[in-house]
């Protein structure tokens, strides 16, 4: 074996603290290392070329790069090895930047020693790396888009036009979403229906888009390239092929109910079309208000009413329609489930639902549309007040976040009210009570100024309460003008509450079905706030629009196009590649005891014959949970093998001086390792006695590995993983908890304090917590009554018996 080791200066980031020359010299002295160098920038073109040349010239077959985090440049060096004709899995990166130079910058001497130790760990690991191939899987071109608002429409059109096969599912009877309910859009005052309508009909006409309205997702299983979707298409009781949308049926219908599309400010019939530009443009029956359908729930052959069916000239109405179950095989998924507005009744001091002249902003949108259409609608009177941040930025409601669109939509509504009044020769006094005006988008500040110039008064203050005069129904608002330090108590004809946004009820359901994590604001969480803003934690599932967080139309559309491009990126090649991180069996050790079978959360392990246990590589996710169950060490995990890990542990604990203590950290790749990187980037220091070992999931750490570490000289160990909801590995947290319990019990048996092993779950923003934990772990390592050699020896002698008692 011919190993080459490179120590990177990182342009001073590393070499200002660590003596890189000394580290290179140390590496050179290790067995099988035939070449050791230090260089200013290994990741630069020159660095990469040097590496390729060296590999060829010195016939190198394994490489160690002591530089930055493998999460940062791991892929870079894999591809360099490929270029040099080596298998890419034969390189290991040693993280002496984030885990050494940046966190121990005030201890250069000891940092150099630690860098040597870390490099030794890397050398031990790379010795046991084997040539692996990425796993290849076929992928089709079928995309599921959930939600037919502007984000879902945009994503569907992008994908459909690019030749992908789109299945667009919408719960409501028409696509168009919330945007279809708006009057005009800021900051251009375009009519929403006029710009959205054509896009909606494009969806209807695109041959690559299969549209399912009035439909609900029931369940989704599987993974990228192999999702399986079950959904229900609810009956509309109108045959869409023959209905010509003449509306005779609705004229005949005797039932009137609140029209949800109009936010309840006007009524519709039980047979209706949501709006005249609906897609599909077909009538449907609302089964919750139709007299016959209601009667049929009690008596299945009731014949009450039926006036619509009698009136229909096309004979399109059928009360016999049943829900239709649809199943789809899907390769990628885009979640665009949108938002619901805050329920203003949860803010009783503003009287919504109790005082008839208190409206929510979406209702005002519809009043303006109805006015524009010349319909009879609500009279809002002369004096109008807007109250901002209703259901936003309010800890009383547990909603700390800003809804981002309310400042602008209130400004827009104020403009539109003002404008239509001017046209009609009326006077309107409009006041906007705000906490902060946030008009940050392109052209928004200008729009705000334009509104101020129109004479709309913006008053900085959050009203305490609204009262209603029981006779005149006028509303009194009490509010401090905080800029003037005076209290305004004034009467208004209408108060409009600028309600905030929240994840829609449909979004909640989809999040449950797909097991998508939510951020603290309750919206769906993206995989990375900066670099993966439309990915979710689950590969192949993307999120667009307000499901991810409040945003305006331009941002929703941009995100939607981004999801389309991310989905295309996966599907376009027809193939996807996965890391070969899979469990496998050392058949020579396996005695087919079957203990591992029930441990696997995915049921990937099974008997293939009476004496042979097999692992299905297509099902295995690589969590390593099964390893702990095997008394014969016959199960292993590719890329993180038993041998690799135990040698890494050994290297991490070697060269311990008299009285020196060491703490070992097993850091999962997804959260803890990333967090350690962030701590390094933030240059927050922690004790130098720590050694971090990267693992795919905490469940990979078997009790045996933990105890081996204590035998070899560890004084404290902590295992870190993600919180349960964000780990990609099913049931891994429970598995780790169990493993840690087993290890603790055994430690107690030999008289070692069981607080020396701990497990903790992190989210990637917990920097101080992580630093704290590092301190605590080292404190535990240094506690009185150190582990004696005798204790370590007893542990070693009885290890197998303790782990697998007969």
């Amino acid at each position: 074996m011919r190993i080459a080791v490179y120590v990177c200066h990182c342009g001073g980031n590393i070499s200002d603290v660590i003596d890189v020359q000394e580290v290179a010299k140390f590496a050179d002295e290790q067995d099988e290392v035939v070449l050791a160098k230090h260089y200013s920038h290994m990741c630069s073109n020159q660095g990469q070329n040097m590496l390729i040349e060296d590999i060829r010239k010195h016939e190198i077959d394994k490489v160690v790069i002591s530089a930055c985090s493998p999460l940062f440049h791991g892929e870079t060096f894999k591809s360099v090895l490929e270029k040099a004709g080596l298998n890419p899995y034969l390189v290991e990166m040693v993280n002496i930047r984030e885990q050494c130079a940046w966190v121990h910058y005030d201890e250069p001497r000891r940092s150099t020693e630690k860098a040597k130790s870390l490099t030794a760990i890397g050398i031990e690991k790379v010795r046991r790396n084997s040539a692996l191939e990425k796993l290849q899987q076929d992928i089709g071109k079928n995309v599921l888009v959930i939600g037919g608002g502007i984000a879902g429409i945009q994503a569907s059109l992008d994908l459909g036009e690019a030749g992908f096969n789109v299945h667009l599912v919408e719960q409501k009877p028409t696509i168009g979403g919330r945007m279809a309910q708006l009057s005009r859009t800021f900051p251009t005052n375009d009519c929403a229906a006029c710009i959205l309508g054509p896009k909606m009909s494009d969806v209807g006409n695109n041959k690559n888009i299969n549209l399912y309205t009035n439909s609900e997702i029931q369940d989704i299983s599987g993974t990228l390239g192999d999702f399986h979707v079950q959904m229900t298409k609810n009956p509309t009781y109108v045959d869409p092929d023959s209905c010509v949308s003449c509306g005779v049926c609705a004229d005949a219908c005797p039932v009137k109910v609140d029209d949800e599309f109009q936010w309840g400010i006007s009524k519709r019939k039980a047979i209706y079309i949501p709006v005249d530009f609906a897609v599909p443009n077909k009538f449907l029956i609302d089964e919750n208000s139709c007299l016959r359908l209601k009667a049929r729930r009690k008596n299945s052959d009731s014949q009450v009413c039926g006036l619509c069916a009698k009136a229909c000239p096309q004979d399109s109405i059928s009360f016999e329609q049943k829900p239709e179950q649809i199943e789809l095989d899907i390769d990628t998924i885009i979640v665009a489930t949108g938002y619901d507005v805050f329920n203003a009744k949860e803010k009783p001091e503003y009287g919504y639902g109790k005082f008839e002249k208190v409206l929510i902003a979406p209702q005002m949108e519809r009043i303006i549309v109805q006015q524009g259409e010349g319909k009879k609608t609500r009279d809002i009177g002369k004096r109008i007040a807007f109250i901002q941040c209703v259901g936003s930025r309010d800890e009383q409601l547990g909603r700390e976040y800003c809804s981002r669109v309310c400042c602008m939509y209130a400004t827009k509504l104020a403009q539109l009210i003002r404008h239509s009044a001017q046209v009609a020769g009326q006077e309107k006094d409009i006041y906007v009570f705000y906490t902060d005006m946030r008009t940050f988008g392109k052209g928004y500040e200008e729009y705000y100024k334009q509104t101020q110039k129109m004479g709309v008064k913006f008053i900085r203050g959050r009203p305490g309460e609204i009262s209603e005069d029981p006779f005149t129904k006028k509303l009194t608002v009490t509010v401090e003008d905080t800029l003037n330090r005076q209290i305004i108590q004034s009467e208004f004809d209408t108060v409009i509450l600028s309600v905030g946004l929240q994840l829609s009820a449909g979004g909640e359901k989809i999040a449950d079905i797909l097991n998508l994590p939510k951020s603290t604001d309750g919206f769906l969480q993206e995989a990375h706030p900066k670099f993966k803003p439309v990915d979710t934690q689950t590969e192949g599932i993307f999120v667009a629009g307000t499901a991810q967080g409040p945003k305006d139309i331009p941002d929703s559309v941009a995100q939607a196009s981004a999801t389309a491009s991310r989905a295309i990126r996966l599907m376009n090649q027809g193939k996807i590649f996965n890391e070969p991180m899979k469990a496998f069996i050392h058949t020579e050790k396996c005695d087919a005891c079957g203990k591992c079978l029930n441990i696997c959360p995915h049921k990937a392990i099974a008997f293939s014959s009476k004496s042979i246990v097999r692992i299905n590589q297509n099902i295995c996710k690589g969590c390593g949970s099964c390893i702990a169950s095997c008394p014969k060490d016959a199960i292993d995990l590719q890329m993180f093998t038993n041998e690799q890990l135990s040698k890494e542990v050994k290297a991490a604990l070697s060269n311990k001086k008299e009285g020196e203590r060491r703490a070992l950290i097993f850091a999962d790749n997804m959260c803890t390792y990333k967090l350690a990187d962030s701590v390094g980037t933030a240059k927050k220091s922690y004790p130098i006695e720590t050694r971090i070992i990267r693992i795919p999931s905490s469940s990979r750490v078997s009790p045996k590995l933990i105890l081996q570490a204590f035998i070899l000289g560890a004084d404290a160990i902590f295992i870190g993983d993600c919180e349960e909801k964000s780990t990609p590995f099913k049931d891994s947290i429970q598995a780790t908890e169990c493993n840690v319990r087993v290890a603790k019990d055994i430690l107690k048996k030999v008289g070692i304090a069981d607080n020396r092993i701990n497990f903790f779950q992190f989210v990637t923003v917990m920097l101080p917590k992580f630093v704290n934990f590092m301190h605590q772990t080292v404190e535990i390592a240094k506690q009185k009554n150190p582990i004696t050699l005798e204790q370590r020896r007893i542990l070693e002698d009885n290890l197998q018996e303790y782990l697998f008692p007969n």
Partner: protein
Amino acid sequence: MIKKIIIDSEGNKFLEKIETISGEKITSCDQCGVCTGSCPFTDNMDITPSNVMRKVQLGQKEVLETKTIWVCASCLHCMTRCPRGLDLSKVAEALRQISLREAIDNFDIDQIDKEETKKLPPIALVGSFRKLTG
């Protein structure tokens, strides 16, 4: 004449003291004014409740001289609505305590109408002593 004020570490000490006594994170007040808009007794105050918070934030000790801090009856309308979850009654109490702990009374017991003491509920008397005397 517009008075100039200084913002300095002296002021920060005052802020810290009030934060310690009240247990409230006063710096997180956003000055939205919902407290003022909810207060039933602003007619009897000289500065608005939100202004009290502002003056404490900036360490302006003159806030101790205001009527407002004595008028606050801890009815908690403001606390129920504060979007930053602050309890202004605790801030007012802390400001009152600065005076009361120096045994300065804000209320003269001899003032009480003797006839009325017979009718007054004990909780009114004790409440007053607790809130207004040192």
